[in-house]
Structures are given as structure tokens and as C-alpha cells.
């Protein structure tokens, strides 16, 4: 078993984020609040509840260097929280959206953050010193549907997005006065703000969970058709690979190294994907050990579960959030968030955390996994 810690924080968690030193975790318990827990001697205690949003908080990101929290919500607003003494002080960021905000991420330099929304737009927000104000600049009319996920390239300029129109796009987010044109060889060398660098049209269904590899050379995202997409050489001539897998679709991905990706989703069990020495990606294994050997009985049990649902046996009035039946694994419902925790000296992710609709935050360790070392 590679899960080293399991914490049941709430009934359901929409998203979570870790403080820079990983001693605190912030999450949204499926309502308009953000709870912050601190670990002290093996126990987690609640230290703050941040009330400011009016509706479900859909995204949280905690900046590693500046120790600021950014949150977005279905109420179409965003707040940047900074810690002053022992209190968290919010600053409202007016996103200028007419639909819910769905996801948020700080840029690598933490001078900007990106918000994906149901208004088919992406907001790039940056701080204006003279006005003491966060400004939101919109990338409009590029997406045909809701933006489900955003990911920053390590160069702090390029932004990848996935959308429910099934496409993955890469934009330049260069903002005069905030960014400098120093990265000569970069793709974004002379692209203007909001210019689309590439559009990847690989999936025919909703796309979720986009991420760049640590170097920024490879892009991975998932489709709601149980397929994960890997794109090398993002630029004029990208090299795309589709990996279709046997199980339920994924919601989010994480690059552990250049050649290893972990995907989490509706199967409640993290899946490991790896690239072999020729660069061909494939499914490697489930991380939660109950499913390492796929057996026919698994299908049997899932079908009977489905039939139970269809005929509503003793399931009347079941809350959609509640898991239908314990599956015997660590997570008992869809996992929708995965974050890196500890890294080794060479930049590989050693530990990561997942949270899901079952209200658990689970910490996983990849050490002592000899069979996956061949992919590193």
C-alpha cells in the first residue's frame, strides 16, 4: 500500500491546497467556506474558517513563495488571502465573469494567476502596485464551452486550458509591465496577450485536468471518454498520443517526472502512466493495491452495483454525494484533485496528495516502488 495517511476531513471536498511547508491544508467542504487545518503531533486541528464567498468554492491555490491563498467560487468572484498576524485578510478580485469560476492556479513566479470559468473565458489576474488592486484580463471568444482546468508552463507565460468542448488550448499570457521578454527560445517569444499558440482537438468529449511536465516539454490532459492524451513538442508540429484505458474516466493528472504521470478520477484509485525508452506512453498500474490484478470479479461487482442503483433497492433518497457502496479502497468516491507534496533532489515527486467527493485527503508515497523506477 502506498497510501501513508488518510484524513477524513468532511463529507465531501471540492478542492484542496497545501501551505508552503505542508504543515497546513486548506480545503472546501463542498460549501462556501474554506477550512484550514494544521497538523500538530499526528493530529489535525482546525485553525481557520474563511468566510467570504457566497457559493461553493471551486478552486484553491496556495502560493509556495509568497504564502498567499487564492480562491475562486461559483459566485463568480475570487479572493486573494494574505496572512497578517494570525488572521487571513481577503482582497476581492473582480473577475468580470457572468458564470461560475471553476479552477484557479498561481503562475510559477506567483505574479499572476489564471482562472477558468463557465463563461467560456479565462481570466489572467495580476497585481497593480499603484492602485493596490488585482486586475483581471480576459481571454475571450476562444473557448466554445466551460474551461475546466488551467495549467501554467514553467516559463510563466504559456497557459494550457481544457474545456468541455473537448479541446486543449495553449495561450500566451504576456502582460506588459508584468512579464519580460527574456526567454529567447520560448514558443511565446513574441506572442501577444491572449494569442492562441495551439489548439489540440483530440477528444470528442469533455476534457479535464491539464498539466505540463516539469520541463514544459510535454502536456498531458484527460478526456471524459476514458482516454488520456500526451502531447510532446507543443508548437507548430506537436506529437500527440492517445492512451485509452479500461476503467472509468479521469478528472485530474500530475506529472511525477518527465516520463511518469498519475491520473485520478471516477475509478477512485490513482492510475500510473509511464513512457518507455522510445517515448511511448502506456498504462502501468493502479496505485491502490486492491486493483493491481484486474480480475473478472471486479466487473461482476460493479455491474451488480449498477443494477442495484437501477432498481433502487434500499437506495431510495440516496444523496448523490454519498458513495453507493464502499469499494474497499482508500478513496470511496471520485477523486477530483491531485497535488504534489515532497520532491526529491532531482525534482521528482516523491509524495502527493489526493482529495475527492468522499471527503478524504490521502497522502501517497512513491518510494519503495521498485517496479516504477524503470520509468524515471
Amino acid at each position, binding site marked *: 500500500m502506498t497510501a501513508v495517511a488518510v484524513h477524513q476531513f468532511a463529507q465531501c471536498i471540492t478542492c484542496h491546497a497545501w501551505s508552503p511547508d505542508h504543515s497546513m491544508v486548506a480545503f472546501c467542504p463542498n460549501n462556501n467556506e474554506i477550512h484550514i487545518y494544521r497538523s500538530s503531533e499526528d493530529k489535525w486541528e482546525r485553525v481557520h474558517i474563511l468566510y467570504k464567498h457566497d457559493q461553493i468554492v471551486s478552486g484553491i491555490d496556495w502560493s509556495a513563495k509568497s504564502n498567499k491563498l487564492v480562491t475562486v467560487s461559483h459566485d463568480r468572484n475570487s479572493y486573494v488571502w494574505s496572512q497578517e498576524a494570525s488572521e487571513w485578510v481577503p482582497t476581492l478580485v473582480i473577475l468580470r465573469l457572468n458564470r461560475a469560476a471553476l479552477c484557479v492556479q498561481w503562475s510559477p513566479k506567483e505574479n499572476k494567476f489564471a482562472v477558468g470559468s463557465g463563461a467560456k473565458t479565462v481570466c489572467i489576474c495580476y497585481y497593480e502596485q499603484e492602485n493596490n488592486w488585482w486586475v483581471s484580463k480576459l481571454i475571450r471568444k476562444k473557448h466554445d464551452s466551460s474551461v475546466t482546468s488551467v495549467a501554467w508552463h514553467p516559463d510563466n507565460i504559456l497557459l494550457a486550458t481544457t474545456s468541455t468542448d473537448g479541446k486543449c488550448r495553449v495561450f500566451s499570457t504576456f502582460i506588459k509591465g508584468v512579464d519580460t521578454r527574456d526567454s529567447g527560445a520560448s514558443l511565446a517569444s513574441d506572442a501577444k496577450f491572449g494569442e492562441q499558440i495551439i489548439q489540440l482537438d483530440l477528444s*470528442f*468529449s469533455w476534457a479535464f485536468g491539464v498539466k505540463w511536465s516539469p520541463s514544459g516539454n510535454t502536456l498531458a490532459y484527460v*478526456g*471524459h*471518454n*476514458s*482516454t488520456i492524451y500526451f502531447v510532446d513538442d507543443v508548437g507548430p508540429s506537436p506529437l500527440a498520443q492517445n492512451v*485509452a*484505458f*479500461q*476503467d*472509468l*474516466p479521469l478528472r485530474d493528472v500530475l506529472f511525477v517526472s518527465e516520463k511518469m504521470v498519475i491520473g485520478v478520477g471516477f475509478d477512485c484509485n490513482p492510475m500510473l502512466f509511464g513512457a518507455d525508452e522510445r517515448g511511448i506512453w502506456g498504462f502501468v498500474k493502479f496505485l491502490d493495491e486492491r486493483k493491481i490484478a*484486474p480480475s*473478472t470479479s471486479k*466487473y461482476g461487482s*460493479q455491474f451488480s452495483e449498477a443494477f442495484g442503483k437501477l432498481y433502487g433497492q434500499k437506495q431510495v433518497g440516496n444523496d448523490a454525494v454519498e458513495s453507493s457502496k464502499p469499494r474497499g479502497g482508500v478513496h470511496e468516491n471520485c477523486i477530483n484533485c491531485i497535488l504534489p507534496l515532497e520532491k526529491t533532489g532531482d525534482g521528482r515527486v516523491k509524495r502527493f496528495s489526493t482529495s475527492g467527493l468522499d471527503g478524504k485527503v490521502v497522502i501517497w508515497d512513491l518510494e519503495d516502488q521498485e517496479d516504477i523506477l524503470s520509468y524515471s
Partner: protein
Amino acid sequence: MARQEGSVEVDNVEAIIVRIEHKSRKIESLLKQFKPVEALKTALEGAPPKTKDERCKSANWIVVHRAMMAIKDVDGMFTALDPEYYDILMKYLYRGLATGDRPTCDQCLRIHEKLTERAGLGCILRSLSDTVNTV
């Protein structure tokens, strides 16, 4: 302009029908040679992409149905059928189940069971979300 586009669509439909007739003859000859799996592979190949024309769809379905019903040994079929056919086969199985015809449904359910064992729930999801191959 509209009339022109309409005629292009008609030409396209005619071309698809000719292709399907050709496919049908090939399948019949394969079935006569007792190569049901080869016949099924031929049937699954070249589904009319993105056409909304019901005539094309049902002509193609008749051909696939013919090949599918000729499969006697389902396990044997899967040892010879490559995984790239799984998603499209699943799509045709659901089309077969939608007919409500007793022998067709029996055959489709028999194949469906084995196919799900091999290709998992992911295959079902892909067949549901596939908008390119119309069956």
C-alpha cells in the same frame, strides 16, 4: 448554393451506399469461406463517418448485423480480434440491443459480456462519447 450543397450530400450518400454494397459482397464471400472473424473485421471497418443519412446508417447496420450474427464462438472471436476494434464493436452492440429483436439481443448480450470483461467500462464510455463514427 443550397441546392449545390444538397447534391454534394446526395453524391456522398450514393458513394457510401456503393461502398457498403462492396463491403457486403466481401463479407458474404468471407462467410462462405468460414472466416466469420475476418468478415466481422471487414464489417467494422469503414463505418460511415459523421453522416446523418438514415439510409446509409441502416444499410451499414444490416451488413454489420449479418457478420455479427455469424459469430458462433465468441471466445474464439476475441482471440482473433485486435483491441482496436473493441470500441466500434461496442457501439454496434448497443445499436443491436436497441433493435429489441430477440435473437439479435441474445447475440449482442453474449458478446457484450465478453467484451466488457476484456475492454472494461472505459470501452463503453468511449462508445458512448464517440461522435465521429455514426452507426
